[in-house]
């Protein structure tokens, strides 16, 4: 199997790795970059545990190959907290609202949630539930996750109180 050198940035740091063409981005991040915060729950694109942001868009990193990330700017869960470990607004909301139990799905939800809070559209109840239904969690029953992202959106001024109507920012 052919091997390729790929260059991209992860959480702002330039990386150059050599991978087989068939290695997924998830495994590239975990094995080649040592970033094990990105979890693999199914390897077939359903659970969303492996969600990362590639050029600011959430992608399931088990569904693309490492070689496809050439030149991309990737963000993973390891890049969310401050260097001293202080949690960001969304992470703190997950703790406050019990948005995690075992924590295995959490990195994927955090990256999806990070994108939700950065989008130009504000969130409302409908879009909150619809977008978060992209990922699976087996522990929480989702309530804590919905509460956490809603609370973070409110804190950051990204919440639209007119349920059902999403207005441009």
């Amino acid at each position: 199997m052919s091997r390729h050198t790929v260059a991209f940035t992860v959480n702002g740091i330039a990386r150059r790795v050599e991978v087989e063409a068939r290695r997924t981005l998830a495994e590239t991040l975990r094995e080649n970059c040592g970033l094990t915060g990105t979890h693999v729950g199914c390897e077939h694109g359903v659970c969303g545990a492996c969600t990362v942001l590639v050029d600011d868009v959430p992608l399931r990193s088990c569904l693309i190959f490492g070689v496809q990330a050439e030149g991309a700017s990737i963000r993973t869960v390891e890049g969310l907290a401050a260097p001293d470990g202080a949690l960001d607004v969304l992470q703190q909301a997950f703790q406050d609202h019990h948005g995690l139990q075992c924590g295995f799905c959490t990195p994927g939800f955090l990256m999806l949630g990070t994108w939700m809070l950065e989008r130009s559209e504000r969130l409302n109840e409908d879009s909150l539930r619809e977008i978060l239904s992209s990922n699976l969690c087996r522990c929480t029953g989702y309530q804590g996750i919905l509460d956490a992202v809603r609370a973070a959106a409110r804190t950051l001024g990204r919440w639209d109180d007119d349920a059902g109507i999403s207005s441009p920012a």
Partner: protein
Amino acid sequence: MTWVGRSLRRFEDPALLRGEGRFTADVAIGARIVRFLRSPLACGRIVSLRPPPDMPADALFITAADLNGTATIRPMLHRFAYRPVEQAVLPADRVHFVGQAIAAIVAPTAELAEDLLEAIELEVEAETALVTMDDALRPGAALVHGIAHGNVAVEGIVQSAECDTAFVSAPHVVEIAIRSHRQNATPMEARAGCAAYDRATGRVRLTASVQMPHMLRTGIAELLGMPESDLQVIAPDVGGGFGQKMALFPEYAVLVWLARHHRGDFAWIEDRYENLIASAHSRDQAHVLRGAFADDGTLLGLEADILANVGAFSAYPTTCGVEPLMAFAEYPGPYKVPAYSARARGVLTHTCPMAPYRGVSRPVITFGLERLMDRAAKAIGIDAVAIRRRNLVDAFPHQTVTGLTLDDASYVETLDDAVALLDIPAFRARQAAARAEGRYLGLGLAVFNERTGYGTPAFAARGMGIVPGYEVVDIAMTPGGEVEVRIGASPHGQGLRTALAQIVADRLGLAPDAIRIIHGDTDRTPYGWGSFASRATVISGGACQTAADKLAVRLRAAAATVLQARAEEIVLRDGAAIASNGSSVPIAALARQVHQRSDLFEGFNLAETASYDPAGTFSNACHAVIVEVDAETGHVRIERYLVVEDAGRIINPLIADGQVRGGVAQGIANALFEEVIYAEDGNILTGTLADYTPPTAAEIPAIEIHHRETISDATLTGAKGLGEGGSIGAPAAIANAISDALAPFGIEITEIPATPPRIRALIRAAQAPR
């Protein structure tokens, strides 16, 4: 002001939120990768098994022949006509289910290991598979294992003459046959293990995603005939378990064998397909229930015929008796059942073995009982709430007909609370109006109890060869004044580190962040049984409380010396030991003195051990749900989901509600969505998450939770367990609600999951001209 009872934020969270948790796959980076060749057939003889033609030098191919001398997995039950089925770690000559591990490949990377796996030459001579219980119980059916005649691996029978009499004389006999289809607990982290050989000591450290690390160590050491002390098992961060990660799986034994024989590090990270087809399944059960009722709805007798498809083998240590025998012993549930006859059988088939899954058989028996109650109410012509109220146990302690003691609980009260919250008359009006528009709303109730926190006596009564139950806790204060608490329980998402710290903090007058709960490492914790059966907070929590109390005695004695007071007058509060005259010493200063100036004290040690082994208690709850069924598509929408639960004293409400919500979500999945489906030949059709379909945030509604706190003296802390309750009530409540919604069609739900195709089939049959 106590720490117990507060919604303290979890200590577990920050690392997990930063992506700094350590799951088994994270520890395994750099190890050689193990992949398993899995049986493509459900039943057959292995004719030949040859390694890949071009094996690289750095690869290994391991079969039964290599493991020669390894014992078989053979858990025991000494009652209930148990047939001790044996499972080889890797089979030498026969396969028994699709997905059974036959051989292992080791390669430097997962990609290379999978290439080699595809090149293994395996020939299996197919034989007819017995997939369903009907297949296996058919007279003259072949035997899955020669030792189990009629393919029955375990059988419990209780026959009561009083019950026969009740049925003869009762004015109403109501019968229901229910079917619960097969489930997979589906933790988001699948199984995983990494065995690392330490050349300096000759020991192996197995890091694995498991719920019972000590038990796994014992089991593997026995299988491989190695000194148990040469094996360390670590359960690091574990991505959910729900029962699936209790068993001793053959794969872990292979990893440890490899580490010992090839003196290196070997990891197996299960993929989702393997997990869905070959880990452990559950709840594949069929029951026939009959109730004898008086005219006023009083239950006079209950008969149950329980069948559980236990798959091809018997999981260690719980055995394949766990499902049928739990249904057998606990069927009367929260009701006064004066007479009971039952027969429960565990049926062997050529399918993935069964193991406990959150609630084990209780979701099924609650489905049975609560459907029976609704059907009986209708048959007798009384109200569904009234028939429950009439029969619920309302005086405690109550001795059940199966010999269990029900401690103080709130069966009637939780029902009454739920009924009051629901406003049933208003709902009925809304339901009638909706029906007039061709919309089908329904309301369903489920009242149940849940046996929790049970220790040795309960497991011994099952006749288990290995009797779990007790928990031991070692507690010690460091010279710096922090408290280290080593527990045998093994949490995997429940927030136990936080909850136990709250319990200990209160007893020592310290803040919870001074308490470190150490778990999941056989080298650092006392022997214990892990986390399952809603037991950890109750049993480990009780042991923690006692251990902390014993440590408090030592601290007070030391403080008495320092403060020149009597030990009895010292209180531990806000981080200090305070005498009645107001003089005080910080506990941290005290700890340093006791360790470093032992010449001043009698007894120099700030360490204690405590154990706890309770008989058990019962939590209870009432679930109530309102659904709308789309008669054209068979789709069920949950409009409202209400839980009134009583788990005794709540240690941490945030965590407690999280447990309830997570459980209800799994119960909803069980009721409406998830099903492991086998084809007739024993192949699995649900090998991806897109086929097995766990629910997402779009399917799980907001769940309204109300608490009652009945403090029973059956537990030390007053806490009853609540890990499983959520999953127990949901299938019954939802099935009752759908049945209520579809009453105009005369439809009742007796089979779960009630998927749209099943509901549509019922509606079509109801509408067909007769």
